[in-house]
């Protein structure tokens, strides 16, 4: 017999032990939202029932924690993020080096790192602006509402960043917003928002994305640019008569070196993608620790 929503959620968490934390967070948010909303409907209809009595028919309809857990587990097998699909072919190490060119996950990481400058600038701008606006307005009467709306926006942006991470880096991230006492009073919701470490972790993540994303973008673009320029240097040199580098004075490599430079560029491109994939998987893990509830 389950006495309260908290107990149900605890049992569900227990039943989902060992699963991906992002999936557990989604399952718990779904269940909590459904149970609390239906419970509120029942309790406001008839006054003289205890929570346990009211919960029984709701749980019967929604499923026991074990049933719900197995449904989520089953779904997860079929619908893991697509780019994360394992490569089942065994290949020689040489073809593995070049196979990265057809690896959707490597290109996804590459795109994520390139976009880092743009998203990072936006996150940095918004967190700086929002924090300073909240600080400035705190002494005024609108202070708390401004802070509340800003923190809600941080949670929403963090959820959305999670979707980008899942789409491009192939790491399972939460799909749905955390439940935030829809029916309860403004004050209670504000309190749970501020008291939740998840909110502050998200804020920290978004703020750090500013420097981190810029570094990602610059390094990736630099590596990619170098490999493209080297690979296409024969055309660049023979057709357009441009130097290889123009740091202090233009440098033209000797003719015998040109094919070698082109070859080096062709080898550098897969290497860049390998680096992008490695960095992408590191960033995916980092995003998971900061944006998913433990």
């Amino acid at each position: 017999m389950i006495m309260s929503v908290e107990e149900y959620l605890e049992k569900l968490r227990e039943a989902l032990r060992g699963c991906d934390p992002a999936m557990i967070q989604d399952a718990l948010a779904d269940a909590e939202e459904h149970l609390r909303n239906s419970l509120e409907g029942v309790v406001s209809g008839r006054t003289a029932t205890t929570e346990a009595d009211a919960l029984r028919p709701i749980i019967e309809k929604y499923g026991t924690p074990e049933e719900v857990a197995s449904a989520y587990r089953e779904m997860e097998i079929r619908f893991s993020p697509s780019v994360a699909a394992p490569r089942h072919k065994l290949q020689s190490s040489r073809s593995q080096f070049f196979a990265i060119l057809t690896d959707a996950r490597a290109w996804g990481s590459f795109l994520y790192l390139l976009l880092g400058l743009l998203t990072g600038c936006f996150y940095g701008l918004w967190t700086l602006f929002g924090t300073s606006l909240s600080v400035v307005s705190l002494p005024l009467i609108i202070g708390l509402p401004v802070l509340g709306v800003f923190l809600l926006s941080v949670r929403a942006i963090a959820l959305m960043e999670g979707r980008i991470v899942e789409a491009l880096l192939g790491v399972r991230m939460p799909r749905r917003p955390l439940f935030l006492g829809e029916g309860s009073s403004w004050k209670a919701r504000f309190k749970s928002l501020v008291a939740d470490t998840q909110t502050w972790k998200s804020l920290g993540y978004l703020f750090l994305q500013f420097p981190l994303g810029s570094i990602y973008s610059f390094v990736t673009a630099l590596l990619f640019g170098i490999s493209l320029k080297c690979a296409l240097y024969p055309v660049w040199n023979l057709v357009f008569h441009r130097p290889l580098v123009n740091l202090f004075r233009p440098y033209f490599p000797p003719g015998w070196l040109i094919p070698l430079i082109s070859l080096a560029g062709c080898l550098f491109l897969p290497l860049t993608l390998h680096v992008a994939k490695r960095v992408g998987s590191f960033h995916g893990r980092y995003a998971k620790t900061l944006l998913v509830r433990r």
Partner: protein
Amino acid sequence: MDKQIDEYLGRLKNELKGCDRSLIQDALADAREHLSTALDNALKKAPGLKQQEVWQSVVDKFGTAGEVASAYREAEVRLGSPLTSIWPSRPKPVLSRFLGPLADARAWGAFIYALLSFLTGLVYCGWAIVGGLFSLLALFFIFGIPLAGLFLFSLKGIALVEGRVVEALLAVRMPRKPLFVSPDLKWTAKIKALFFAAQTWKALVYFILQFPIGVLYLFVIGGLFVISLAFIASPVLELGFHLPLELLGAEAFTPAWLLPLVCLAGLVLLPLTLHLAKWAGTLHGRYAKAMLVKD
């Protein structure tokens, strides 16, 4: 063998009638890949068996078309559209509906999409035009056909990536897997299939249009966002740092009585911008689906 698979896929498609088009495309691609590899493996393992028996055992394991379709339908309901809650929301007061987009991941997603589509649009459009012209030119040479094939193939890959970005940011269900192409097909046949697929050309048009659309999004939505932030911060900027709003020339300071109103206007404009972004995102999601998902 191929006939049986096609029949099975036809039945599965029938069972999934009314579902989302991206879901149908994924389910069919999954089923085709699974069935054809399973059949190949089974035939290799036991070459003596009759084809009919092998087919039966493979289908028994995978499930009938009806079973597979109901599994997909069920999972789709539970997974729901990302970024929003799967339960219907209750009616809300006007103020929280107006401020809603600030706390709505979908609105922020659409906003980010509007900013990013300038950059991604530039890449897509550049690749589509340069690659397209290059392969047209190359068609005069002997290596032209493989090169053009490679280009068409790359469009398919980019369409998949753009679909993932659209699903992540606009919360529109898009294909999660590439369309399955039998590995036994010869490369000439693969190129031919790509060339005659309307999908390929629709994706090409989408990519070329993405650049002008992205520029429009960036200027309208990004511009409104920056203006509203500047309005909100204008009292602090003008009184604290002596920085005027440079909308009306460099030295145009706002009169002091107007400053609170400018700040208020910014506070109203910010949610409005996000409403606009969300609306444009919904439209764009439908457009992307029409252009990038197989009918």
